[in-house]
């Protein structure tokens, strides 16, 4: 039994990806591992004084909440789920998480409207990047 890694941001737009990952986990009898990445790069856009460490802590709290919600969704479908929370840039952290032991598959959500983190063309390219760099297969759902 392996682990399916599903990067999520937790919003409604992520529910479709989460559901697809849950269905895959049920089908393959795998465990789900939700990933949330705390990225505070957007702070560069403001000229106001901010404390990145305090903002990162708040985003971590938010991430924990969103991950718990995702886990509850999985558990409703009798799928065992865990989570990891990392700090940094999404693409880099996703690749690092894909190399964790027991991760057998990475699930990426197909862009759905303007809420997605990826553009369609970039997603396929990124999937092959993960596969070639980590050796972990990627499924776009």
């Amino acid at each position: 039994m392996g682990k399916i890694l599903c990067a999520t941001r937790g919003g409604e737009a992520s529910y479709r990806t989460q559901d697809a990952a849950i269905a895959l986990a049920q089908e393959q009898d795998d465990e789900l591992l939700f990933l949330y990445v705390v990225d505070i790069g957007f702070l560069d856009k403001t000229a106001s004084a901010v404390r990145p460490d305090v903002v990162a802590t708040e985003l971590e709290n938010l991430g924990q909440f969103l991950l718990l919600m995702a886990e509850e969704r999985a558990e409703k479908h009798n799928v065992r789920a865990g989570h990891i929370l990392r700090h940094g840039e999404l693409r880099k952290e996703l690749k690092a998480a894909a190399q964790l032991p027991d991760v057998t598959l990475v699930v990426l959500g197909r862009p759905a409207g303007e809420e997605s983190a990826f553009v369609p063309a970039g997603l396929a390219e990124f999937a092959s990047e993960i596969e070639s760099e980590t050796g972990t297969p990627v499924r776009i759902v």
Partner: protein
Amino acid sequence: MAKCRRIRSKRVWLATLILGVISIALVSVPWRQANALASSSRDLAPMPEAQHVSLTGRLVDPTSEPVEGATVILYINGSPVGSGEEGTEIEVESAVDGAFVLDLPQTDLGSVESLTLKISRPHFSSLEWQATEQDLAKINRSESLRLADMTIERRVTPAFWIAALTFVAILTLVALDKLHTTMAALLGVAIILGVSSVGGTVDPDFFVFDFERAIEYVNFDVIFLVMGMMIVIGVIEETGIFQWLAYQAYRLSGGRAWLLVIILMLITAVASALLDNVTTMLLMTPITIQIALAMEVGPLSLLIPEVLASNIGGISTLIGTPTNILIGAYAGLSFNDFLVHLTPGVLLALVVLTGYILLRYRGQFLQRGGKLSETLLERLRESGRITQPDKLRMSGFIFAIMLVLFVLGERIHLAPAVTAIIGAVAMLLWVTPDIESMLKVVDWTTLVFFISLFIVVGAIQEVGVISMIATTIGDLVGDNLTVAILVVVWSSALLSGVIANIPFTAAMLPVIGYLSATIPGASNDVLYYSLSVGSAMGGNGTLIGASANLVTAGIADRAGYRITYASFFKIGFPAMILTVGAGCLWLLLRF
């Protein structure tokens, strides 16, 4: 015995010596005083009295602002004065108030046939003044002359275009998100000072100002106030107070989304007035998203009203927005001035905003959410707790004293910047006694941004761009104060939506200064308050209009809820029109 006599004899000698010294002193003091008096009376004895015949005047620009640093050269009978005459000035520079004083040489008095002043200054046309027959007669009778104010006309030089285009480039780069604001402002400083230094030596028309003059434009009241408040906020924000307040709002609302949004808007407005709106939104946004998800309400229906309220709330105090800090420092407005003159307007705008928001999101607010699981509720409780209660108690106490000092500051001659520094130092000594913490909480990038901005705005002021804008607006509004209020409020509100409001406000301040001095009835600072209302509330019109909007959008995006330019505009722009209208109405009623 002999030894005893010797000692006694020594004592007698010593006593005699001391007495002698005292006697000499007592005698000599009156003698010296008498001598001094005699000497002074000799000094006061009739001597050939030095007659100071002077020529004084004052230089102003077309907006009646004093012209400092202009060179004034005096010519008598066609040639420059001062050929070796001790104590006479052949050339003087106008002072800060534009005044100049020229002492005329004694030797020439009585035989002056012509008297000419030649005045020159970079960015101004040269001016020549000729004495009339009457003036000459006065001079020859050894009477001083007081000239009427002289207006020297601005001149458009290459330096004018360099400074103006650099400022426009900075605004464009920031608006298009091509460069960080600080980097853009620093680039502006480098261009202006570089061209001014190198180009100015080749052709004086390329000269904007030198480094010393550039530094004179930096308002250190603003720098220290911003720095002090950064430290204070940096300590308070660690305590979890914002998150606790948001969680209490959730509990108080009892699952009613409409009530929750009202409480959250009130919290963000008050917090923004006392601290700053960007920090408020940075800390309120994550917990608000969690609360929204817990109540099964769209997070944006809580976040957007919060950020709109936060941009409005900041207007009511001197420290609430960076633009108010700039306005207060420039116009000398106190904490109380903002509080008294703007808080009712802010409350009116918040009432209007609340009505609009409840109407706009009525569909979502009337829905009842599902029940939250115990695990998620516990997580929410965890996010909404005060993390450092001791630190909160101490920092809260210091902050309360700071507020008292801000309010009383004017009476006890305590500048807001000094209060902020006192509070910051108290925080560092008592609450977080660690110098590393200070380095961590001060955002040096922001301070560099303000310093650079002052220099760039100083450059456009120096070369006459501001003066040109001021006279154009002055001509447009004439003597009508109502029109002036409407023009300042609405133009700053609409422009703040597309260009960064801090550089805009900094550039507008001298313009407002001119309008306040020339429009009848505007001396009560109403136009400064108009700028405050327009520039801060105008930020609600677009996503890029205020930093708080961008950080809220940034965090919401991290949770999968994207706030796009269009989605923000749909809600923010009508809200901006309504609230600016309310603010404008208040200003017209109040003043």
